[in-house]
């Protein structure tokens, strides 16, 4: 009876006859083609780490130069770029399902809508006329 219990601690699940059950691998770890279980390699993480470091030094460097009105947009642009790299690779969204991708996109979009509409209120008031 105990032979029936393929313990999930095993890397290779077996059935009652000790035949490999990879086709039914419940955790789906051994199936390399499954998109949701894409294991991001340390090489990719290392590259993203490098990109983030360069971005950090760039944003400090850019703040030292007087670029007039462009200082703020450049700082925001670099920060957004860094955040996108973190979300796509460190947070695996690039390798995630459409459901997760849509959820993340919808969240940031909603945030931008809130900021944009609040700003519209402020810029369109009759400042100093009441």
């Amino acid at each position, binding site marked *: 009876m105990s032979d029936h219990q393929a313990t*999930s601690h095993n890397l290779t699940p077996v059935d009652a006859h000790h035949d490999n059950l990879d086709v039914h691998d419940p955790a789906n770890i051994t199936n390399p083609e499954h998109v949701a279980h894409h294991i991001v390699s340390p090489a990719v993480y290392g590259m993203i780490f490098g990109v983030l470091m360069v971005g950090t030094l760039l944003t400090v460097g850019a703040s030292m130069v007087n670029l007039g009105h462009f200082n703020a947009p450049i700082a925001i642009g670099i920060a957004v770029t860094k955040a996108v790299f*973190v979300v796509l690779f460190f*947070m695996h969204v690039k390798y995630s399902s459409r459901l997760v991708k849509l959820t993340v996109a919808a969240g940031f979009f909603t945030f931008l809508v809130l900021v944009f509409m609040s700003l519209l209120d402020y810029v369109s008031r009759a400042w100093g006329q009441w």
Partner: protein
Amino acid sequence: MSIASTITHPPEPEIHPSHDVHEHPFYQKHHFETAEQQREAASFGMWLFLLTEIMFFGGLFFAYLLYRNWYYEAFVSASNSLNMPLGLINTIVLISSSFTMAMGVWSAEIRNKKYLQISLIATIVLGFVFLGIKTVEYHDKFVEHHVPGASFDIKDFVNPPKDSLEKPLTVDMANKTQIYFSLYFAMTGVHALHMIIGIAILFVLLWKARTGLYTTGYVQPIENFGLYWHFVDIVWIFLFPFLYLINRH
């Protein structure tokens, strides 16, 4: 075959096909069809939580945006009073901790307990380094009387030291630096609180990881915590230029 034997041996209960086909891993809850489905649901739920966090920090960022436009000179002077090199070091420390956490997720996925423990410890250490540097910065602000409240002192902004390049502010504008520092302490304080909570969870994960719990295919808790930690990193990626680098030239 007598009638009695059919009565004493009831028919086998019907088993749902999904339970019949294969065994479940120990971490799969019964209300999920597959471990894959469970993992997807957990990721989705974690992201929904992080979206509420975006809205939470977003409110502070919007307040910052408005006041920065209204009292730009006060924000520049107050921002330049921060210790930029310490902020830069902290940015590097936090990005490094995100990297070690990402390596932790990878270690759990390849089921290497030793690597996972090393990654979690490294993340904890870097988290403490960040909080330590933040404490030094907070301490400086208290010494300089730059903490909003009764003991706030505008003299550094009205009469900047002779060797500094700062433009002196009017008393009215100098008082507005309190708004900057209120936002500075609110934003970095809430961010630091997230890190303190994160480090506490890291200790729990490290404690449980010693049994090999997370290196058997049960990656979910490590992965979801990774999402949280990277999110806290993203918040700092915006806080650093917004608070420290408004006008450094």
